[in-house]
């Protein structure tokens, strides 16, 4: 069993329940939407190109204690280095190496994609505020259908820092979503390559479930 993270609002709930036990398979999520660009454009994605994503959360699990009416959560993905395109059963697959995801909680709510990134507001307005989460990608893959107009992505991360984790955690974050181009009918600001609609999921390895004395003692006997 791994101890991954404790959402802020759950910490208070857990303290009185001293013997909380992990609930496996439970995740807390954040839904986000934004845009991405890659050096040299995409598609094609050439080996060595860097993918950058800037996005804003439009839903956050109540467990995180963030009111999107007063604070924005902004996502900044950077340092993902393309390994180049590969055919994957007729679709296009791009594996990336390296890369970080940072999420900021910012009461100024001034995120602005602008045009032709990087620019005066992107990524700058997406990296303001307090650090909510920082993670390092252990894997990130982008897929496109044969037309190259729509696709999906998924990635896993180690948690490194931020207000929602109390320690580093290994492979505790998963993110997935859709990636769309102008050819799919997506609206995309000038200079960006992709529209990104994704979900951030973090393991809730510690929950507020109560446990009997017997099951608590059994944990220490394992």
């Amino acid at each position, binding site marked *: 069993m791994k101890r991954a993270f404790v959402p802020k609002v759950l910490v208070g709930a857990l303290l009185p329940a001293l013997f909380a036990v992990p609930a496996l*398979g*439970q*995740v807390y*999520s954040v*839904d986000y*939407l934004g845009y991405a660009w890659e050096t040299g454009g995409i598609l094609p994605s050439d080996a060595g190109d860097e993918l950058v994503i800037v996005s*804003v959360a*439009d*839903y956050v699990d109540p467990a995180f204690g963030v009111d*999107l*009416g007063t604070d*924005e959560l902004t996502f900044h993905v950077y340092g993902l280095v393309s390994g180049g395109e590969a055919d*994957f059963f007729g*679709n296009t*697959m791009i594996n990336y190496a390296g890369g970080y995801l940072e999420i900021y909680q910012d009461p100024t*709510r001034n*995120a*602005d*994609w602008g*045009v032709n990134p990087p620019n005066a507001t992107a990524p700058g307005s997406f990296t303001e505020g307090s650090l909510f989460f920082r993670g390092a990608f252990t894997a990130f893959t982008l*897929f496109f*259908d044969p037309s190259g*107009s*729509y*696709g*999906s*992505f*998924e990635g896993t991360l180690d948690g490194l820092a931020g207000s929602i984790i109390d320690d580093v955690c290994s492979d505790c974050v*998963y993110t*997935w*979503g*859709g*990636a*769309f181009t102008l050819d*799919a*009918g*997506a*609206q*995309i*600001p000038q200079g960006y390559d992709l*529209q990104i*609609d*994704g*979900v951030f*999921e973090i393991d809730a390895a510690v929950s507020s479930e109560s446990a009997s004395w017997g099951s608590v003692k059994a944990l220490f006997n394992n």
Partner: protein
Amino acid sequence: MKTRILVLLVAAASVVVPMTAQAQQLFDFNGQTDLPDMVGSDLTMYSRMFDASPAVPPIPLDFANFEFTLVVTGLELVTDGNPQAYAGGTVIIYQDDATAADYANTGTFTDGTAILVGSLVSLNRTMFTSSLGSVLGTVDWTGGTRLDDIAPEDQDGWAFLSGTINRADSVEPGFDEAWDGKVEPQEPIVDDEATSWGSVKALFSR
């Protein structure tokens, strides 16, 4: 796209003023999907809609006081395989201030006022891995209490785009897939648009 003509009383009437940068417009949703078992059966999807600020919905929605849900029904699987092809579905956006949407009771997604009703003309669903995929479809809006908020020439051909996942952690009990996507016009809906005198006169010459 235009909903109203704004005539500019400027001396240089032949100069068209370019549209300023606008916020991206979309109906953002996050939902759960029942997939059909065979060709001829239907796909259904129940979702909650979110305020994707600084992007904006194509028509104003009061997220502070209402819950909005987007529901797909009757979307028939016509060709199986990868990709799958679907046709004939209905998309409805509901506005509700009474019951919170709950995946354990799908009726909570279909109560309230049907503000937009559309036809999901076609949709392709592609799986890239055993768990991860994407869908691309087209929506024509045909009804609902807010249909008139969209000019007739702007009601057809909206993109229906979504990522899909079937990991156990992401899928609610009783469903097959989670979908995270949006419905959006291919160009922003605007209140008015600058045009030249020549273009205005041309409209009356038809």
